[in-house]
């Protein structure tokens, strides 16, 4: 459904951030994009959603295809109407708008009439009952979890086929993270929405995703089925925080410093 082929992204004409990233998201899949801070997860998502432009970034090589057609030259507006929408990192709700108004802005690109939009609003409230309770409050005064729900709900209002979800777990309590991911899974199963999600929380992401890519300083260093990745020794050690050979003493530094095999 979504194909990213060997893209290179440069900011301000000089800073090379992505050095040839390729990935694909099958229709109906949940694909996780993992990596540490600054690995290029957000940049990848923004390259797809075409929000790079406003940050003086551009895709200099490679191409991105959504449902078979190239999308690098579409404006974000056109992309949203063709069914691919991004939920930005850090939620970015419209603070001074009420929750319901926030959700309604998601339907801005739709042309199928207010009845259909109302119906979808109801649906969003069914997935996120908390939002219904708070629909009159200003989004800026709601909790982080509610804001994340609002941001996802807002994206849903555009009737997407694919959501690019950037760090949904950021700054949320573990319990809420589970709740959000459950909803993501639900949406994926019931509404058939595909997800590409960038996460630092490798543990949760790999439990819900079907496939995963690991980014490190602008390159995909590893990819595979979520289950495989979860059991991979390197991933365990570097991303899941579980040592391969049980607990070790810090005295055995040499031993502890396991080589990142894929960099060799």
């Amino acid at each position, binding site marked *: 459904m979504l194909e990213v082929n060997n893209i290179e992204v440069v900011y301000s004409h000089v800073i090379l951030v992505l050095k040839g990233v390729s990935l694909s998201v099958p229709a109906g899949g949940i694909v996780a994009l993992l990596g540490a801070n600054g690995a290029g997860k957000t940049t990848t998502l923004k390259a797809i959603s075409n929000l790079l*432009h*406003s940050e*003086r970034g551009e895709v200099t090589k490679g191409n991105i295809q959504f449902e078979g057609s190239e999308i690098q030259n579409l404006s974000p*507006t056109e*992309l*949203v109407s063709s069914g691919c929408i991004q939920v930005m990192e850090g939620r970015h709700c419209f603070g*001074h708008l009420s929750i319901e108004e926030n959700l309604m*802005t998601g339907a801005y690109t739709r042309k199928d009439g207010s009845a259909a939009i109302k119906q979808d609003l109801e649906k969003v409230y069914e997935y996120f009952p908390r939002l219904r309770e708070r629909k009159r409050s200003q989004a800026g005064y709601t909790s982080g979890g509610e804001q994340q729900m609002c941001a996802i709900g807002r994206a849903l209002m555009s009737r997407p086929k694919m959501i690019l979800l950037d760090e949904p777990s950021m700054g949320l309590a573990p319990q809420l993270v589970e709740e959000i991911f459950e909803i993501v899974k639900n949406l994926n199963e019931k509404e058939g929405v595909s997800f590409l999600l960038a996460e630092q929380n490798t543990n949760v992401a790999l439990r819900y995703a079907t496939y995963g890519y690991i980014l490190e300083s602008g390159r995909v260093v590893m990819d595979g089925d979520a289950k495989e990745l979860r059991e991979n020794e390197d991933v365990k050690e570097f991303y899941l925080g579980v040592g391969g050979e049980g607990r070790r003493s810090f005295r055995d530094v040499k031993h502890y410093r396991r080589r990142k095999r894929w960099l060799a």
Partner: protein
Amino acid sequence: MSPAFLNFVEIVLNGLMTGVMYSLVALGFVLIFKASGIFNFAQGVMALFAALTLVGLQTGQVPFSHLINAIFGTEIHHWGGGMHTVFAILITMAVMIILAFLIEKIVLKHLVNQEPIILFMATIGLAYFLEGAGDLMWGADVKVLNVGLPSGGSFWWEDVTREWASTGSEYWGMYIDKLDVTATVIALILVTVLTAFSQYTATGRALRAVADDHQAAMSVGISLRTIWVIVWSIAGFVALVAGIMWGSKSGIQFSLSLIALKALPVLILGGFTSIPGAIIGGLIIGVGEKLAEAYVGPLVGGAIENWFAYMLALAFLLFRPQGLFGDKIIERI
């Protein structure tokens, strides 16, 4: 009622109506600031430009006539007898919309996500450009604008108020300019319409969304460029209204662009992001400066009117920087 009290009432009333005139200019600032975070220094010049265009069309002036005459040695000034006021207003509005479109296309498009100060500088450039363009197109002479609005003092009101004074006192009634009353009514209608537009329409909601968060607005598919054209068109419309009012009141001259400066304290008082705030801020400034002039002025030799607004603004900056009605700065901890 004693003449002193009636005098006081007259000053307040006139102050209120002067305030409305300030508000009309401030309104344009608020619209653009809300939607794009740009402080549009050119708002006053836009009012001037709109008024110049209106009067030019109305009297049938040939645009760029001086330039054409200088190059081709011709002697053209006017075509026919001009056009009907209503047509002239409609065409001026169209010109303002085209202007908004060009501003987006030529200036703003290239400055997405730049620092506010850079955008501000761009609007200063725009102000000078428009002032020059207005000069080149319509000439620099002072023009009289008459769109058929009632003007002059109201005798009826003078008679009514004369009756109020206690018998025997020498009181000759209050002076109220009919033009000011008209301006007030028009401003009220304008604000009501604008508020309704931004609260209850999808476009209005998108405007507020853009005001809150550019990036997020783009991510849900709101086109910043469309929104900016819309906002600058509305601001152009407000500028036209302000231009008509100020032009009818004091003639169309290039110092008109300086009324933009009087809008600054209004904005600081009312808050840069609130439409009702712009109105109430204007009223407070209007009344404040007239009262200060009348009662404090004589003690310090007058001319308080000129700086009172700025002092008030300064005090506000110290104690309530977001203004009376500005958006509360929502901060989660």
